[in-house]
């Protein structure tokens, strides 16, 4: 079976700075792959390369068996299939919640206004945000904004969802509502590749955990192996540091 996403020996450098150094990984259907690693390990860059928001320097990316490397592949077409949600929400401040969600389907996919709005309202209803439809983003809490951002990506009917540390900018009290939404998506079978600092969450929801350090994959495997009994000392050191920090901050 062809993988949803397959990266082969991907590298990315900004000038002299090598951010990704030969990353290979697969996301299979219904899989949730969690990228963990310190800040600056290349997680965000990796995600942005996957939907061509950043052009990779070398290596191949294929989506459902289609190589995205050719010059004729247009980024905007790829991004209509692969949704991404950012750490800082990035909702459109000049548009209402409803307009934020319908903009992609209406403008990029040419869905009618009526159909796009009906679908957006369904999504808002399903995730408990229906009464916020006509609000502007700055009236919403961080957790609500991030949930709207996820719905904005979902409204495009993506075949793969990329989540870039979507709870890092949130108040600790608001993290749960966002993670619950992601859990629900995972349960519904949406393939996802996500960068996260929430180790607990990764243990819960991931089918595969990938530990990145300095742009390389150090270790990957099921969460009960990588997170519970890591083989590589660097992974173990990261987890120890993380858990120590978590206890002091929690």
């Amino acid at each position, binding site marked *: 079976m062809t993988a949803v996403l397959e990266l082969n020996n991907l590298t990315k450098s900004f000038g002299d700075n090598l951010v990704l150094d030969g990353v290979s990984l697969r996301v299979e259907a219904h899989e949730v792959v969690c990228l963990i690693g310190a800040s600056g390990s290349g997680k965000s860059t990796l995600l942005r390369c996957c939907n061509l928001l950043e052009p990779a320097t070398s290596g191949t990316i294929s989506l459902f068996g289609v190589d995205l490397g050719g010059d004729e592949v247009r980024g905007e077409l790829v991004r209509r299939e692969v949704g991404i949600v950012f750490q800082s929400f990035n909702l*459109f401040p000049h548009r209402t919640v409803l307009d934020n969600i319908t903009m*992609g389907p209406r403008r990029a996919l040419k869905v009618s206004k009526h159909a796009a709005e009906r679908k957006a309202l369904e999504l808002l209803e399903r995730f408990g945000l229906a009464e916020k439809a006509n609000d502007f983003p700055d009236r919403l809490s961080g957790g609500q904004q991030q949930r709207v951002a996820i719905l904005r990506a979902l409204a495009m009917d993506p075949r793969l969802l990329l989540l870039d540390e979507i709870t890092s900018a949130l108040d600790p009290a608001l993290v749960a509502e966002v993670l619950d939404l992601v859990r629900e998506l995972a349960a519904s079978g949406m393939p996802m590749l996500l960068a996260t600092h929430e180790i607990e969450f990764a243990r819960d929801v991931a089918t595969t955990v990938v530990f990145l350090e300095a742009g390389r994959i150090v270790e990957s495997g099921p969460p009960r192996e990588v997170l519970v009994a890591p083989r590589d000392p660097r992974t173990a050191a990261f987890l120890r540091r993380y858990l120590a920090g978590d206890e002091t901050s929690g």
Partner: protein
Amino acid sequence: MAVLFFLVVLIFVLSPGARVFAHTFLNPHYMKIALLGDPSHNITPMWQAFLKNVLLCVVAEPLVLLLALPVALVRNTKSPLLAGPRAALTVYVDFARGVPLILVVLAVYFGFPILGIPFISSRTWFQYGLFCLVFCYGAYVSEVYRAGVQSVPFSQFLAGRAIGLSELQLLRFVTIPQALRIVVAPLINDFVSLQKDTAIIGIGAGVIELLKAAQINQGVFFNDSSYAVAGLLFLSICVPLTRVADRLQANDMRARLAGSQS
């Protein structure tokens, strides 16, 4: 502030020449004649002359707003394909912002007709005036637009691309609407300024617009009150305009903060 204003007024009122000043510059009798005209002297009423300024400004402003946008957008691109137009527009903006409007007016009104080019050399004073204003203000306004577009955070571009928008859609639905909100106040500022600069057109154009009407009045009655009338007429447009700008911004803010109550 109020105290300061009061002091300034006081200095004027108590100055030794206050009476002569008021008689020369603020004489109600001559102000009325200047504004409404005087049939016995066959002088154009200033309110009529002012219509020319208003018309010039009302036609020039939309043209400025329209033509400055592509200038700003092209100047903001990075594509090597547009390097030529970009360089040309940079020269234009530098030139048009650097040369005083009055010199452009003189060059156009006295230069274009003697060039002997079929279309260009035979335009009306109004068309030349439009050209001067649009030429100079287009450069200013394009810079305002450019700053507006640049002040839209990069994360908004990412968000727009992330939902599959093309570059043109990104401009139309994400960048330009947000940039316009940011630039409303500076744009109105330039509009007010353009409105006042229509007075400069009269220096080149052989028509009686507001400033020239004021000069004629002054020459006939040997009284400067017509200049005060000119000032008041400009104020009568500019002050409401700035109020409208403030109102627009306040409304926009209120609409965004009151979304849930509707």
